[in-house]
C-alpha cells in the first residue's frame, strides 16, 4: 500500500493512523528558527467520527487507507443490516451495520441514492443527500385555512425522523427536509 509523507498531506486524503482510517481535514507546517519542523494535522477518524489535532515530525509518513466513496441506492433493512446497491450497473450489494448508517438512519428511503464510504470493501459510513423528500406518517390533523404562517407541530416521517412542520401539513404529504439541520423546507405534494 502506498504511503504519504507529511508534505503530501492534503485535505481529503485518507490515511491509516493507529490502525483506523482517517480523513485529513487540514495540515499546517510549523518550523522553529532552528530545529525540528512539525506538521499539525487535523483529522477525522472515519470509524467513530472523532475530529482532533495530531502533531507529526515533518517528513514522517502514514500508510494510505483503502477508502472509497461510492453512490449506492438503499434497498431494505433486516434486523441487523441495512442493504445498499451500487448505482454503476454492477448490482453489487453491501450490508451496512448500525454504526455505519447512524448518520443516515433518520433519512433512509428505499431507492434513494446515498454516498457510502467503503473501507477495505466494508461500509463504514452512509451520508444522506443534503435534501430528502419523505412522506408524513403521523401528525396532528391540519388546520383549515392556515396555509402559510403560524405555529408549528411535530410530524413523524416514514423514515422515522420527527421534524417541526407548519400547522397545515397532513398525514400523507411529502415534505422536503434538509438532512444537515433536520429542518422542514417545503411541501412537495
Amino acid at each position, binding site marked *: 500500500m502506498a504511503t504519504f509523507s507529511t*508534505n503530501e498531506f492534503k485535505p481529503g486524503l485518507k490515511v491509516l*493512523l*493507529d490502525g483506523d482510517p482517517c480523513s485529513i481535514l487540514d495540515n*499546517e*507546517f*510549523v*518550523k*522553529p*528558527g*532552528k*530545529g*525540528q*519542523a*512539525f506538521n*499539525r494535522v487535523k483529522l477525522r477518524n472515519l470509524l467513530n467520527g472523532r475530529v*482532533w*489535532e*495530531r*502533531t*507529526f*515530525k*515533518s*517528513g*514522517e509518513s502514514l500508510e494510505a487507507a483503502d477508502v472509497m466513496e461510492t453512490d449506492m441506492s438503499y434497498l431494505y433493512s433486516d434486523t441487523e443490516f441495512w442493504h445498499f446497491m451500487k448505482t454503476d450497473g454492477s448490482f453489487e450489494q453491501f450490508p451496512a451495520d448500525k454504526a455505519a448508517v447512524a448518520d443516515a438512519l433518520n433519512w433512509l428511503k428505499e431507492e434513494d441514492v446515498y454516498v457510502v464510504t467503503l473501507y477495505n470493501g466494508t461500509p463504514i459510513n452512509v451520508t444522506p443527500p443534503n435534501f430528502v423528500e419523505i412522506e408524513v406518517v403521523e401528525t396532528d390533523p391540519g388546520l383549515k385555512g392556515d396555509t402559510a404562517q403560524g405555529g408549528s407541530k411535530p410530524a413523524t416521517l416514514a423514515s422515522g425522523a420527527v421534524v417541526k412542520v407548519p400547522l397545515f401539513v397532513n398525514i400523507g404529504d411529502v415534505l422536503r427536509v434538509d438532512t444537515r439541520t433536520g429542518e422542514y423546507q417545503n411541501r412537495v405534494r
Partner: protein
Amino acid sequence: MLARVRGFFADRDVLEVDTPLMCHATGTDPHLDALALELAPGDRRYLQTSPEFAMKRLLAAGSGPIYQLCKAFRRDETGQRHNPEFTMLEWYRPGFDDSQLMDEVAALMGVCLPAPMLATDADIPRISYRELFRQYLALDPLAASDDELLACARGYTDPGDMTLSRDDLLNLLMSLVIEPQLQAPVFVIEFPASQAALAQITHDHDGYPVARRFELFIAGMELANGYLELTDAAEQSRRFAADNRQRQAAGLPVREVDNRLLAALNHGLPACAGVALGFDRLMMLAAGAGHISEVLSFVADNA
C-alpha cells in the same frame, strides 16, 4: 522595501556583497535539507540554505561589516510562511555584540514596518527563553524533566507515539504554543545551549549554559535569528561532528564539513555578531499578508 533596506545599510557603511548560490559544501544542521545539483557528472554542488559560510569567509578575509540580500533554498519547506526558495537578508557586524546587533535590527524594523506595528518607537523588549516559558507555560525549560515537558506538550496537542528529544519537545512547545502568542515585537534571548547552532555559549545568572542567540518575533511569527558568532574553529569542528552524529542516528546523509569555512575560522574570524532575517516575512508584515504566497511573484508550485 528592497530600496529601504539598501538605504539603511548604505547610511551605516555596511557593504553589500553577493556570494555564490551554488556551493561545494552545505551546513550539517540535521533539520536543514539542502537541494543538491550536479554541475558535471559526479561534481556535486548544493544550493545554499543561507549565505552564512560564504559571508564568514569574507569576514575572515577582512571585509568589514557586510550584508546580503539573496535567495536561499530549503527542501521540503512549504507552508503558510515557507517557500522552498525564499529571500534572505543576512548581515554581519565585526565589533558588535548580540545586544548591539539587536538594537540595529530594531532600527531596521523602524524603517521597514508601519509605526503602529511597533507600538512605540522605544526599543523592542527582550525576554530570556527561560522567562518566556515560565510566563506562557509556567515551566522552567532548563530545569524541567523530559517527562514534564512531554506532559506539558500533551496538554496542547496529540503527539501520538513519536519519539521526541528534549530539544524537539522545547521546539514543539515554542512553535505550537508560545510563538502564536508573541504578537507584540519581542526579542527572545538566551536560548538553551543545546540550541546554540553557531552562537557562542555563556551562562545565565543561575549558572545554566545558554546561547548568545536571539530571535525576533512579530505578530506571532519568527522573523530573524542572530548570534554572537562562534569564532573558535575547534569548537566549530566539534559542533559539525555532533550534528553529523545526530544525522547518522536519524538515518540522514552525513554532510561533508565545509573545510573552506574551517580554514577561514583558523585564519581568524573577527569577533562579530550576525543575523539572518526572512525578507518575505518582512514583506508579509508590511503588507498585512496571511500567506507567503501573497508576497511572492510565483510560489514554488507555479514557478
